[in-house]
């Protein structure tokens, strides 16, 4: 398991679901961009926790509670280290959607005068600007729309070039004095392109704006060092990185987490409470109201250890190889239009979204499914990006550590039969 180049055929044995058949065909799972499959080690870690240690954390003095608390906080350390951060800078969330909403609502709360005196630095005034990009997943778009609508701030969008790269000249012009927040994705879940985080962060910092990174599609696929990237906050989801559902992380710079007001309120995040008022614990607990996803945190730590066992460099190399084979293969099939088909030299993850001329994405997906190939069809929660490319839907194949060259070839072979089946083109 400590190989420096990844052997997906060997790894597959760790993923029980990959032994399943779909429609009488071996499952070729190319929908990891939506959710990844889980290795046995992750399932075992959760089951082991539930059958041996399960109990509420941070709340009891009894033995199980103490053991569970240790496992839970060890898991935090493991997952934090995976993204280059100390444990106290990792807030547990239930996923990236909640993490991004947390930030938007906390800023909203600061705007409403809540939090400590230092929270005022996040308050938005009417006319202040929030900058996002045209390629965002709805999870990193709608919370900002709503925040803007609640506070009178203005939402602005960095446009995308035809090849899927962000228009950095436009970004330079957009990010200005009034910019208070710049929120963008590390890797788009439709384009698969790794965005130039350093450049965007530098521009935002020069204007004193807060940076928020959506690391959902990078955390599972590349070595990640969030403090080195310089972002103020970053969100990711466990279920996309071989971990359980309903667990995720929000990384934050220490001073930012310190000064942001809380979001969800309730148990285990307070120091004192009277009937009228509460005072809050320091981060990360300040943001962790209520019973936490305990077994899921333990499971996510197991997922991270599994990925580290492979090595994130090896993961990335493997996926780049798959990605190149996938895009080259698709380019050769008549009637295929790739979204975000960048020239060589631009870093990417193993994901390709495309349109098949004359055949609706839903029909393409169904055709592939009959061959055992699971892909995603639709707008992938990025409607504005699809609109930008004149589409309402596309087909997306996305790979992970357990995908092989064979998987890609079965997929390509299936795609090449689509248009004939539906009588599109000649």
């Amino acid at each position, binding site marked *: 398991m400590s190989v420096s180049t990844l052997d997906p055929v060997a790894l597959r044995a760790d993923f029980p679901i990959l032994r399943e058949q779909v*429609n009488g065909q071996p499952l070729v799972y190319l929908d990891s961009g939506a959710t990844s499959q889980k290795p046995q080690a992750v399932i075992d870690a959760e089951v082991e926790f539930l059958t041996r240690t399960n109990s509420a954390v941070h709340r009891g003095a009894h033995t199980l509670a103490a053991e569970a608390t240790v496992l839970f906080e060890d898991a935090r350390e493991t997952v934090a280290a995976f993204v280059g951060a100390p444990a106290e800078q990792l807030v547990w969330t239930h996923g990236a959607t909640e993490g991004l909403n947390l930030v938007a609502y906390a800023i909203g709360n600061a705007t409403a005068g809540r939090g400590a005196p230092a929270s005022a630095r996040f308050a938005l005034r009417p006319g202040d600007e929030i900058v996002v990009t045209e390629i965002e997943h709805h999870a990193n778009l709608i919370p900002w729309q709503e925040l803007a609508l609640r506070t009178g701030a203005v939402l602005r969008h960095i446009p995308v070039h035809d090849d899927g790269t962000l228009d950095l000249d436009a970004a330079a012009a957009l990010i200005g004095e009034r910019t208070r927040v710049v929120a963008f994705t590390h890797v788009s879940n439709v384009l698969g392109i790794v965005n130039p985080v350093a450049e965007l962060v530098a521009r935002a910092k020069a204007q004193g704006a807060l940076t928020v990174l959506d690391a959902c599609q990078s955390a599972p696929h590349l070595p990640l060092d969030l403090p080195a990237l310089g972002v103020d906050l970053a969100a990711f989801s466990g279920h996309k990185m071989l971990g359980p559902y309903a667990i995720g992380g929000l990384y934050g710079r220490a001073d930012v987490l310190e000064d942001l007001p809380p979001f969800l309120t309730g148990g285990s995040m307070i120091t004192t409470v009277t009937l009228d008022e509460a005072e809050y614990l320091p981060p990360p607990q300040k943001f962790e109201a209520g019973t936490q996803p305990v077994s899921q945190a333990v499971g996510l730590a197991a997922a991270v250890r599994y990925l580290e066992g492979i090595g994130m460099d090896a993961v990335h190399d493997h996926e780049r190889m798959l990605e190149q084979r996938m895009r080259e293969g698709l380019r050769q099939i008549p009637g295929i239009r790739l979204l975000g088909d960048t020239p060589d030299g631009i870093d990417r993850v193993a994901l390709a979204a495309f349109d098949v001329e004359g*055949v*609706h*994405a*839903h*029909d393409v997906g*169904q*055709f592939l499914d*009959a*061959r055992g190939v699971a892909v995603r*069809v*639709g*707008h992938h929660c990025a*409607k504005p990006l*699809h609109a930008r490319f004149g589409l*309402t*839907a596309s087909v997306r194949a996305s790979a992970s550590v357990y995908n092989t060259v064979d998987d890609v070839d079965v997929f390509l072979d299936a795609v090449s039969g689509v248009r004939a*089946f*539906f*009588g599109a083109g000649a």
Partner: protein
Amino acid sequence: MSGLDGLYQELILDHSKARDGYGLAAEEGRTASSHQHNPICGDDITLRVRLDEAGGSIRDVTWEGAGCSISQASASMLVGLVEGMETDAATTLIGHFREALRSRGKILLDEDEFGDAAALSGVSKFTARVKCAMLAWVALEDAMVRA
């Protein structure tokens, strides 16, 4: 690939290209339209029904929209089926159609009752596609209520 052939029968692929009733007729007499949208896949349809003067039966149905072959074929099949039908009967028909499609393969569409549209029986097993097949039918149901 029996599964796939069960879903995409010849008749369906033919209708998805023929698209009977495509292109909205002019608003004339008792006319009502309905716009339906499937947020999951982005498919949409605008369907227009024109009734006889008394409002008791359907003169014709026309539609426009974009979507997968199932949704296009289903709209096309619906057009031939309901032309001239009493609105009450059409409402009953739509109810039967919904019931069969939601049955997860348990209820088949009767050829006598559904004509070409009986070919859509296979969709019922594909739960993710049921909404595609329903789109035009829901639009007609909605339009008749407004007419």
